């Protein structure tokens, strides 16, 4: 029942949703977020992948990882916590088993990647950047730095800057950096990326959280802490996107956090994002990312927006 891929909106004389962001030309601004869309194939029967602007794969590390003990997820008010632990098939597994399908899926493919050491990041990024069918890389810097006592790479602007620089030096393809919201100043992190050659920032990753079962007196996640996602975090994500936009760093922003509808996406565009990613909502409604594209188009049509770029950063303050 796979419907025919949606035509780029402009084909119908409708609004143009095409946009360039972080060195990639997207036919529309709606992507799916890392860790919430598998390796794409899992959704192939549920929506036409070509209707999406792009998709971001599960985070890939040099070697396969098995992730954290269970339970790994739990629901919270308008959100969920996860502590998947960056489980993935590893670089070689990805290239051999997942990439062939992705080459034919009809949408832009960004590969999310990470390492547990500086060198792993560089190695993984370099190798992924050489693979055919990969349109861009998204670096997940919310990974604990084993050599620095488990502090996330992405928390310290200086460490982050060095990491971005080192990866940039070996990656010719578009390089996006996905920022952690667990910071007192998101602009410093974005600046470190902009100054070290990143093509875009993805904003935001999950917010650190925790849940407890009062009756068993145990944490609901085996690892105690997890990452909060879903509608609950949208206000925080919007704030950070706008703070970065307002700082005028000149780096494009991909907005992420609690997006459920086209209207939510438009809010991120107004705040300064030129693309967005749909995450947790893929679990609630697996066809929602396609719907978000349609709803963005409907919004543009109803509001006299002929080109998406008219509203990017268009917040009236």
């Amino acid at each position, binding site marked *: *029942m796979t419907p025919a891929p949606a035509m780029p909106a402009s084909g119908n004389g409708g609004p143009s949703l095409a946009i360039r962001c972080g060195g990639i030309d997207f036919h529309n601004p709606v992507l799916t977020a890392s*860790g*919430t*869309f*598998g390796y794409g194939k*899992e*959704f192939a*029967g*549920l929506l036409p992948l070509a209707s999406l602007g792009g998709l971001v794969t*599960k985070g890939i590390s040099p070697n396969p990882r*098995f*992730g*954290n*003990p*269970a*339970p*790994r*997820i*739990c*629901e919270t*008010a*308008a*959100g*969920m916590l*996860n502590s*998947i632990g960056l*489980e993935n098939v590893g670089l070689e597994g990805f290239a051999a088993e997942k990439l062939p399908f992705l080459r034919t899926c009809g949408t832009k493919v960004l590969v999310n990647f990470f390492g547990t050491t500086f060198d792993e990041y560089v190695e993984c990024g370099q190798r992924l950047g050489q693979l055919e069918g990969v349109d861009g890389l998204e670096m997940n810097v919310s990974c604990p730095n084993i050599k620095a006592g488990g502090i996330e790479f992405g928390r310290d602007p200086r460490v982050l800057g060095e990491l971005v620089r080192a990866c940039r030096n070996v990656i010719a393809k578009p390089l996006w950096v996905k920022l952690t919201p667990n910071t007192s100043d998101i602009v410093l992190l974005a600046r470190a990326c902009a100054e070290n050659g990143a093509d875009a920032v993805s904003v935001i990753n999950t917010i650190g959280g925790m849940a407890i079962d009062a009756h068993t007196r145990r944490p609901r996640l085996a690892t105690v802490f997890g990452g909060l996602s*879903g*509608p609950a975090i949208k206000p925080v994500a919007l704030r950070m996107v706008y703070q970065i936009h307002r700082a005028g760093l000149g780096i494009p922003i991909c907005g992420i956090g609690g997006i*459920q509808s086209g209207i939510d996406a438009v809010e991120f565009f107004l705040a300064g994002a030129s693309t967005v990613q749909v995450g*947790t909502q*893929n*679990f*609630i*409604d*697996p*066809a929602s990312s396609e719907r978000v594209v349609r709803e963005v188009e409907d919004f543009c049509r109803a509001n006299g927006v002929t080109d998406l770029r008219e509203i990017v950063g268009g917040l009236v303050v």
Partner: protein
Amino acid sequence: MRYFDARIIENRALGNGYFVLRLGGCESLAGSRPGQFMMLRGDWGRDPLLPRPMSLLSVAPEGRADLLARAVGQGTRLLESALPGTRVSILGPLGNGFPEPTQATLDLLVAGGVGMPPLFMQAEHAAHRGLIDRCEMIYGGRTARDLVLLAEMRGLGLAPCLATEDGSVGRRGRVTAALEARIEHHRAATPDRRLRIMACGPREMLWAVARIAEPHAIECYLSVEEQMACGIGVCLGCAMPARSRPFRYACSDGPVFLASDLVIPPAPGQVAGGAP
């Protein structure tokens, strides 16, 4: 597997929080196997946020599908009070399901509480193939009020062996004690019969069933319940420690697993160790 909208046709209360929802518009579930499930969500805003996994109880022609649930939390309470005509969205059928009933086997269907639906559907499936005498339902709950749809079971040709913790109906005690008794009975009466166990229920019950099956070398299938977000193997949330690999996924590798592929914790009171 499809994502579609269905409507509640009937919502039948069975007492004690149990209810059967009959859904219309479920043509896509027609070929489902017993043990498969769906991710189901009402049109209830963002609270609760995620869809709920629900086993199939029965699927019938013309797009009818039944499920049995018990109101225990937010989602199931909303379903309990949903009126006929209410729209729900469904992703399914999902997961693998139980093995086919065969002439050569006798399947002990071990149901604990609200874990009963997949075993009911397995029995229904056996009945449709004329194999109802190749399965036996062993059904336990806390009290008589936790054992539901007994008339429907008898209608399939089952004579369920019941157990309640308070002894209000059937054997007093846990369903696992009843299972042991039935195994002993069959071992004595028909020692050559190839027994299989298929079980669904609370986690502790499943582990106990596995510990019973193991020394008897009985092929044992467990349908497990895990927290789920996606139901289709992408969130990696429903990991189960397994033997063949560090983890298997309840939604896409299961929910039915060979007990021998799972890491069964030692019985409470027993010290861990020995097992790989």
